[in-house]
């Protein structure tokens, strides 16, 4: 197993390097972070020149890439071009915000999806099953941003109609919430995150419940479960002891893989709900054609994807005794 892990990690390194070069070159060639500055009347030429020099913007691309690599390792990914602010603290904050959203959404999605999936499999072709299936299909046919918008409108209309506010529709916290004490703060945060969480959880739930159902069905109809039944074990025990955990194996893989990409994937939800997370950070950095923040972002997400992919394989190998890695 260890050799497998090491080999995978070693293979990932050239992939990551190649990916970083690809992105760095594309953005550097096609964009000029000082471009917008140049079009503003009466901006001092000397200032522009000095910023360009400080960031080596006039050097050949390969040299610039070299500077970036150095900054990435020794200087926490460096600083932004225009304002010379360090990137890492902002990125860290963005990651933390997105993490809150993703973790909560995934946990909710998993719990509900597994329950629904198992029930669907047990009562295959029942009304419950059909309803759940249709809802799942609806879930992964719906564009995320549309769901987000609808939820926003509903929340606002609810507020208008009844005068009570359950959910907030934008931002992470109300002003002054932090000062109000720990529990009011947590409650306020929950109220702000509720709608985005529902949005993301709904879509994840759809996928996970289908997976659970499918693998549960496969397990239920498999030989060893039939054997267990034949041995006279009561159905509940059969499900719990044998079917359940085996059925969950493929789901674990899917969840782990999904988590790896989720960090970079909540872009749309964060835009609609004005959450200051990874998605918003990325869009802003890209709009300014600032290579350093974009690279920092992509590298972190790429590393996460690699790690979680590896993790998924390891977990799968650990759980399923039929798989052996050499």
């Amino acid at each position: 197993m260890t050799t497998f892990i090491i080999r995978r990690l070693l293979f990932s390194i050239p992939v990551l390097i190649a990916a970083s070069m690809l992105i760095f070159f594309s953005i550097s060639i096609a964009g000029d972070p000082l471009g917008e500055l140049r079009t503003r009347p009466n901006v001092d030429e000397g200032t522009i020149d000095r910023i360009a020099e400080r960031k080596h913007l006039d050097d050949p691309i390969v040299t610039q890439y070299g500077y970036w690599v150095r900054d990435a390792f020794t200087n926490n990914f460096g600083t932004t071009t225009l304002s010379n602010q360090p990137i890492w603290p902002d990125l860290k904050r963005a990651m933390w915000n997105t993490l809150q959203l993703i973790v909560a959404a995934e946990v909710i999605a998993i719990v509900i999806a597994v329950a629904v999936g198992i029930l669907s499999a047990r009562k295959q072709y029942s009304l419950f099953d059909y309803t759940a299936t249709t809802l799942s299909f609806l879930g992964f046919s719906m564009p995320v941003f549309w769901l987000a918008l609808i939820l926003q409108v509903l929340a606002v209309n609810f507020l208008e109609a009844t005068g009570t506010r359950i959910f907030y529709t934008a931002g992470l916290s109300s002003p002054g919430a932090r000062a109000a004490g720990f529990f009011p703060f947590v409650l306020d945060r929950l109220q702000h995150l509720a709608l985005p969480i529902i949005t993301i959880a709904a879509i994840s739930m759809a996928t996970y419940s289908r997976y659970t159902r499918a693998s549960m069905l496969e397990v239920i109809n498999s030989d060893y479960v039939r054997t267990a039944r034949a041995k006279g074990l009561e159905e509940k025990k059969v499900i719990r002891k044998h079917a359940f955990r085996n059925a969950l194996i493929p789901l674990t893989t899917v969840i782990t893989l999904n988590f790896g990409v989720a960090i970079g994937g909540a872009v749309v939800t964060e835009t609609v709900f004005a959450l200051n997370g990874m998605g918003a950070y990325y869009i802003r950095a890209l709009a300014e054609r600032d290579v350093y923040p974009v690279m920092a972002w992509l590298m972190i997400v790429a590393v996460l994807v690699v790690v979680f992919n590896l993790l998924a394989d390891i977990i799968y190998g650990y759980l399923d005794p039929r798989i052996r890695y050499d």
Partner: protein
Amino acid sequence: MTDDPRHIRPTSADTQESALATEEVVEAESAATDDSLYREGLRVEARSQWQLFRRKFFRHKAAMVALTLLIILFGSAIFAERVAPYSYDEPDLANSGVGPTLTDQHYFGTDKIGRDYFSRVLYGTRTSVRVAFIVALLSTTIGTAIGAIAGYYGGWIDNALMRFTDLFLTLPSLPVLIVAAALLGSGQPTRVAIILALLLWTSLARIVRGSFLSLREKEFVEAAKASGASDLRIIARHILPNALSPIIVNTTLIVGTAILIEAVLSFLGFGIQPPTPALGKLIDDGRNAMLTDWWLVTMPGITIVLICLCINFLGDGLRDALDPQQQG
């Protein structure tokens, strides 16, 4: 989805190796064709794969409904010029901000400069369909080619190609798409389609590679090799037809994915640019008026949901029909 008799009795499918070489006996319960039966005059007819597929597919009610709906939707989108009462860029300020109504054929109402929304949604659907089909075609071709070569040859070729695939998989698709769209000056549907295809082929490559890895060990491949067939011929004429089912299913699903991603890209402002209408852009434009002119966001949204729903059901039906190993 149907009350498939396979649940009740074991079938030959359980014992076959290659899923698509199934034969089904018409009258006899057992799988074996007996000389005795022959002599008794009972005619045993082997069903071809196509007939088998057709039977299962057409019994899948949901998929049938989905297919019909899709034909209607795509058909009207492709022939938008005939179906739409207006063009997509006819401002008419006297009639701006009108809700869905039957007067003047403004079935979906009008937008803020009075353009007929039904027509705009229709043309937008056409753009989406065009993009989605180009994406599906391109990514299937690329993915199948790479997967086939990797799976067939194995060894270092397989390794290299899989590492190449990893390169694309490591980068998160939406952010990279956004970068590509921003840099390559998107806006034209074909450009966006190419960019999308370049990132969506990876899952297909993996699946095809998996199929090829197992199929190349089959006897019919050995036989073909023995008779001197070239590699290309073996890949294309012998193995590929047997690997078709996951390819077909995946391609169908890619169409749905492409439509969704294109909508997200246009919504974020990185996708198709005006004057070509696009469903995601319509939703983005209508966002600010959501509370008063609700149809601007709802109509394109429902269209997207409907299309994807139908594609998903269709894909489900295809998967059920093509893969006898699949249970329910």
